[in-house]
């Protein structure tokens, strides 16, 4: 342990602690901008580049960046002298001199770290504002994410998420000096890069350099169109986080209030993606048992482990980086993409309306869902199964725009039949939830017995890679779980090298699963928030009268009256998909 003095207060910290963390122990909040600490992932972004966190250290000639300077025994630090305050303000003025001054119309206004910091530091004018040279870049728009590098302040948080956490490698610092930016290889469009649209970069961007493509205007237009029947589906993770945008505590469940708000917005039918999650379990679970039984019967052609396929960021990841393994994941579509075709066939038939007159909107914790909804294989004659996908953050914005306060709304129930769901569908939103839901159903189908202990707690938790097993009446089914694409890569490498012993693996692109998705209210790396959101979903599961997907009466009816059998002919047409090799091709001459 070492002792140092910060602002005349003595503090004792472990050797190796930075000045920033030592100050924090004294409740001294040194301002930071580029620094990011994701404790639950053991990831720190401290390029020491922005210099907002500088402090004065006695005996040291220049100011020290507190985020990356280690505390020393006997050190005397001052965080608020005139020299420090002036230096911070000057640094901020420099950053702002090369930043667009369009706060009034900027999509990040009110949630922008740069704006907040400029206010905190009391910047009231930018010297030479009109004569300063500004760096400018072309705008890059993809199906999910917009890159506006004019607003990039080179904090490089996105680069840390993209490379260290997700190992996607789409973004890197490029060029030098005034031209420096975070960009793609050869400054190609994000769409052409290895980007999976997981949105973790958007989730940590302090400014509007990285934002989601906003589909709320199209949604409002569809609702206003009297010729359209607008159907909405809400993903499980949304209900566990939406409340945070209205000042509620993390982990507050707002399912009923959200349904009321969606009705208030004018959606004609308010349904639940959880219904489609139950449907996913029927299809994916059947596929799992099919492969497992074939494997046990000695079929050498059958591929195990089977990997879940409900996460579109993960699908993009293996299509671009592991295309040689594209026949291992389940062919079952994601719940969003199962909901769409069922709504536009089964439910449209019930209403007696044409496909073209129905608009399906999804509320997702995810940015990759925007891209997924636009994939060609999920369209019929150009008409998408899911017309628009908007994030939890966008929904919160819509609700506020419609003058509703979620905290004061009454609870109400989802509409029928596609609002009917089980506890198994709810837990899809947390890491481990999909495979737990699948195991509940697969156990009963395989053994013909009732699963007494529904809570498969061995599959829950927040560790990046987990292993657990479920006893299928003498058959030990080995299950792997990974969340975060960097962890997924490790399991994939094991499979490629023949070292994997799992029968089934669940993979979610985002740390924490969908509850930590790129479209969720920002959690700023606070893992407690993720844990509370997960706990909320397990709470909702525990409170549901039905907790196994195959017992969902609306799902039973769907199969009896429309689909026939799971993995049957109509299921294959509407509920399954195929994957593509999207690895960058090299052109070589002999």
């Amino acid at each position, binding site marked *: 342990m070492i002792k140092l003095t910060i602002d005349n207060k003595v503090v004792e910290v472990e050797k190796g602690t930075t000045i920033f963390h030592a100050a924090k122990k004294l409740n001294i909040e040194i301002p930071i901008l580029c620094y990011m600490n994701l404790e639950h992932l053991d990831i720190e972004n401290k390029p020491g580049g922005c210099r907002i966190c500088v402090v004065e250290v006695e005996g040291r000639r220049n100011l020290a960046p507190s985020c990356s300077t280690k505390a020393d025994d006997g050190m005397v630090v001052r965080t608020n002298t005139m020299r420090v305050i002036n230096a911070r303000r000057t640094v901020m003025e420099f950053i702002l001199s090369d930043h667009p001054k369009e706060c009034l119309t900027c999509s990040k206004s009110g949630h922008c770290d740069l704006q907040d910091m400029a206010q905190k530091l009391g910047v009231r004018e930018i010297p030479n504002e009109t004569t300063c040279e500004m760096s400018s870049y072309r705008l890059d728009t993809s199906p999910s994410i917009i890159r506006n590098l004019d607003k990039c302040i080179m904090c490089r948080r996105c680069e840390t998420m993209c*490379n260290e956490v997700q190992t*996607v*490698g*789409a*973004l*890197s*610092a*490029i*060029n*030098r000096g005034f031209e420096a930016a975070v*960009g*793609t*290889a*050869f*400054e190609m469009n994000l769409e052409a*890069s*290895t980007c999976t649209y997981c949105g973790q970069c958007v989730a940590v961007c302090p400014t509007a350099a990285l934002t989601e493509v906003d589909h709320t205007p199209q949604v409002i237009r569809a609702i206003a169109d009297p010729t359209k029947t607008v159907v909405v589906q809400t993903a499980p993770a949304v209900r566990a986080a939406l409340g945070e945008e209205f000042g509620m505590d993390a982990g507050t469940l707002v399912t009923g209030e959200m349904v009321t708000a969606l009705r208030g917005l004018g959606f004609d039918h308010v349904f639940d993606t959880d219904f489609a999650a139950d449907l996913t379990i029927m299809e994916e679970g059947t596929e799992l048992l099919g492969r497992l039984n074939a494997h046990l019967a000695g079929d050498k052609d059958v591929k195990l482990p089977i990997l879940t396929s409900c996460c579109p960021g993960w699908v993009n990841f293996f299509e671009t980086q592991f295309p040689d393994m594209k026949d291992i994941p389940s062919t079952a579509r994601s719940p969003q993409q199962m909901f769409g075709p069922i709504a536009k066939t089964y439910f449209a038939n019930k209403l007696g309306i044409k496909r073209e007159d129905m608009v399906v909107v999804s509320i997702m914790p995810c940015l990759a869902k925007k891209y997924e909804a636009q994939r060609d294989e999920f369209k019929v004659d150009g008409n998408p199964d899911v017309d628009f996908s908007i994030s939890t953050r966008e929904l919160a914005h819509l609700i506020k725009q419609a003058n509703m306060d979620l905290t004061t709304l009454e609870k109400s129930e989802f509409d029928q039949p596609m609002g009917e769901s089980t506890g198994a569908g709810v837990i899809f939103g947390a890491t481990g939830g999909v495979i737990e839901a699948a195991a509940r159903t697969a156990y009963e189908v395989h053994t013909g017995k009732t699963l007494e202990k529904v809570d498969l707690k061995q599959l829950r938790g927040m560790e990046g890679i987990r292993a657990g097993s479920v006893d299928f009446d003498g058959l030990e089914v080995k299950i792997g779980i990974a969340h975060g694409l960097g962890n997924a890569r490790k399991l994939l490498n094991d499979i490629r090298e023949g070292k994997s012993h799992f029968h089934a693996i669940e993979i979610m692109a985002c740390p924490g699963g969908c509850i930590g998705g790129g479209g969720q209210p920002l959690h700023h790396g606070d893992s407690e928030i993720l844990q509370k959101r997960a706990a909320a979903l397990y709470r909702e599961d525990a409170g549901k009268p039905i907790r196994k997907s195959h017992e969902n009466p609306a799902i039973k009816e769907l199969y009896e009256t429309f689909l026939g059998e799971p993995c049957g002919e109509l299921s294959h047409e509407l509920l399954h998909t195929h994957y593509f090799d999207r690895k*960058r091709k*090299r*052109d*070589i*001459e*002999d």
Partner: protein
Amino acid sequence: MSETKIKLKEKDVAKIVEICGFFGNEPGELINVLHKCQGEFGYLPAEVQEVVSDNLNVALAKVYGVVTFYSFFTMKPKGKHPISICTGTACYVRGAENVMEEFEKELGIKQGETTADGKFSLSSLRCVGACGLAPVVLVGEKTYGRVAADGVKEILAEYEA
């Protein structure tokens, strides 16, 4: 930076693979590998960077990031006679900027570019350790000292024909 697409030949790929192998395919050797590759090909087109990225297991964006960070690396083929003008302190104060402008005017290209016929390319460098001869110009391996703007035509004339 948009670049003309080139097609690598099998033997070019083999050469890059060999260079990466020489450095143990270590991600930490990226700069050394790029240095060697540029020595081999004269420049670092996107296609070369892709092979390096695959073999060293370094994200393509990172490779490009390094190539665009260091002024030594170039993604454009150099001319047959690469012209470098020293813009280090001594040369700069003795008029290197005027010399650069004259070259740009005479060749009709900007710094970092190559003439359409591929004959000359123009770049700046920082100090060749011949400050007594400032301003200094290098054409290929040949050094010219005390170059003034009005001497530029004469230098270029040496490489005509």
